[in-house]
């Protein structure tokens, strides 16, 4: 029974939050990695792209809520998500036409594109703050819990509660669907194959008649969809605030680099590695150990490796270790 309590406590405070957070990071990292693989630069504007997509979704959600349209137990935001994606696609395609294409035609070096993306980041940042403001926005509705702490206690009679929020369940399900569709698209469809070909060898792809502008266009569309979904899921699960999306840039890049930049499988693995490290290293293990160990060995202190203030430092350290010892990442991406 005690061991069961230990597992439940671990699931409640570590496993479930880390899986949800990891899925959100993985979706974000997929976007970054696709841009790196196909367009060959690190897109610093990605966090703010997520914020923009989420913002459009929130505005549509509010409009739907005002019109009395809801999804019952599910959050209305899911209904608004396609519109958010469309808005985000429009933004990214316009940005590409207005900014990135100029540098692509010039065959600018990747580092120049990185700096350009920073400029784009600041502009998107400004747009989001201008439209929706810098404050927290709440847009979640519907049923809050799949299993709430109280219900679980009543059901099982265990001392430790387990809560699964609807947003956490939705995050996982959506992330799985999105990843399956993405891999099917990249591996099975003609457009997906041409994108991979373009990523592997640009010159050869051009010689075999692939239209580069089409590949670029599709990439931006997919990235917009991924960014919006990641942004909305994060906002539903936590809260929407433009600044936190900007801060997400670090763990997302860490995830993409740890997994191997340009490698979609790596991005997903990286997302979960970062999420689990952040949560487990800053978790206080006292409760779990007290349940799991015999009474004589129960710890007196908190058994916490790092205070939770250092959460972001964990992604930094992992990033450094990977770059020092395995610069191509766990799944053999491109060297940074």
């Amino acid at each position, binding site marked *: 029974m005690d061991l069961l309590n230990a597992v439940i*406590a671990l699931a*409640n*405070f*570590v496993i479930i*939050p880390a899986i949800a*957070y990891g899925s959100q990071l993985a979706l974000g990292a997929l976007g970054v990695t696709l841009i790196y693989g196909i367009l060959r630069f690190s897109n610093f504007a990605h966090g703010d792209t997520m914020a923009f997509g989420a913002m459009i979704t929130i505005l549509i959600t509010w409009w739907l809520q005002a019109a009395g349209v809801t999804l019952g137990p599910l959050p209305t935001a899911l209904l608004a998500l396609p519109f958010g994606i469309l808005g985000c696609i429009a933004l990214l395609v316009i940005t590409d036409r207005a900014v990135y294409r100029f540098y692509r035609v010039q065959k600018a070096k990747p580092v120049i594109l990185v700096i350009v993306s920073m400029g784009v980041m600041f502009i998107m940042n400004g747009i989001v703050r201008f439209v929706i403001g810098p404050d*927290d926005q709440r847009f979640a509705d519907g049923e*809050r*819990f799949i299993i*709430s*702490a*109280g219900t*679980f*206690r009543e059901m099982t009679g265990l001392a430790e*509660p*387990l*809560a699964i*929020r609807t947003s956490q369940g939705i995050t996982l399900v959506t992330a799985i669907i999105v990843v399956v569709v993405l891999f099917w698209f990249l591996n099975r469809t003609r457009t997906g194959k041409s994108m991979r070909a373009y990523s592997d060898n640009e010159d050869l792809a051009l010689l075999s008649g692939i239209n580069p502008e089409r590949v670029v266009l599709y990439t931006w569309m997919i990235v917009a969809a991924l960014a919006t979904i990641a942004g909305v899921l*994060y906002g539903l*699960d*936590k*809260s*929407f*605030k433009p*600044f*936190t999306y900007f801060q997400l840039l670090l763990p997302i890049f860490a995830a993409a680099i740890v997994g191997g930049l340009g490698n979609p499988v790596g991005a997903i693995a990286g997302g979960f590695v970062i999420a689990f490290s*952040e*949560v487990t290293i*800053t*978790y*206080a*293990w*006292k*409760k*779990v150990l007290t349940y799991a160990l015999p009474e004589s060995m129960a710890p007196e202190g*908190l*058994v*916490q490796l790092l*205070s*939770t*203030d250092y*959460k972001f430092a964990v992604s930094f350290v992992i990033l450094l270790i990977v770059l020092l010892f395995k610069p191509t990442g766990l799944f053999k991406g491109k060297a940074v």
Partner: protein
Amino acid sequence: MKKLLMATAATALLAGAAQASEVKIGIILGFTGPLESITPHMGAGAEMAMKEVTDSGMLLDGMTVTPVRADSTCIDAAAAVVAAERLVTADGVKGIMGADCSGVTGAILQNVAVPNGMVMISPSATSPGLSHANNEDNGLFFRTAPSDARQGVVMTEILLEEGITEVAVSYVNNDYGKGLADSFQAAFEAAGGKVTINAAHEDQKADYSAEVGALAAAGGQRLVVAGYVDGGGSGIVRAALDTGAFDSFHFPDGMVGAKLEENFGTEIDGSTGQFPGTDSPGAASFQDLVGDSFDATSAFAPESYDAAALIMLAMQAAGSVEPGDYAAKVMDVANAPGEQIFPGELAKALEILKNGGDIDYVGATAVELIGPGESAGNYRQITFEGGKITTVKFR
């Protein structure tokens, strides 16, 4: 021409006469900076007391009191010191009502008030660091706001009365949160309670599941959230409720507000809290006195009125406007014995003092100066019933 000259001379004489019987009091508050939304009401509160005294014509045989405002910025100690220096040297003030934030208040006290022997009464600096137990301030610093050390003691009393002996503490990572959490921990442990964890949280983050994970691991009967209701404090409570880590909480002053009812409703029934407040009749009469001229319920506006009133009453009691003379009288006029004085009764108080009587200034906030000259502090103890904040009692 002759008439004009005469008139000018007469005016000059009159002005000169007026000058002789005028006393200036500095009001140094953060009119710009993070408190700029409440400082106009604080300044107005202090000026109202000065006008009341001037109108009464009772202060030291009809002296008038002129307020001089200066900007403490709340956060920039260098700028605050320069502003206070100007008040003392250029404007020649005889007392300072201020400053507002604990950091700049300490800086002004160290660099201006103590070297110049100037009396300072702050209406809102609550840091325990400003309690000068060893007379480091030469007896020149007072405050009409309670030290957060006092709030720690009040919290301890409330929790122990509820039968709570083990709590976890989460505080917002700044001077307010840390000061309050530390003074609470000291008081609670001295009273035999146990603080299982005393951990910081950053304000305004999206996700507090990691912080709550650590708090839950440490355990405790109740979670003390020394944060802001509009910021991370509510995030911590939300995450703690969602994960089932804690189901009742204790809220200090930064957390008690209408927003708390709105955010959580009945989910936090059984939780407790306290914030500065008094059931003294002074609070109501202060509001009547203010009317519509400014917001009497704005935070620290009544404390500002009281701070200014204390300076002038001490001057009257000492029979002198010199800080060196009246500093020792501040405690006398603030505390018993003597006739109780409420807002709007400053004229009566001046009269009693003039006749050699004793007063006990109660004012708008039930002022009672203890220890090194700080407000004992009156708190409203609250609890949550049916999703509403309910007053239990005052302490």
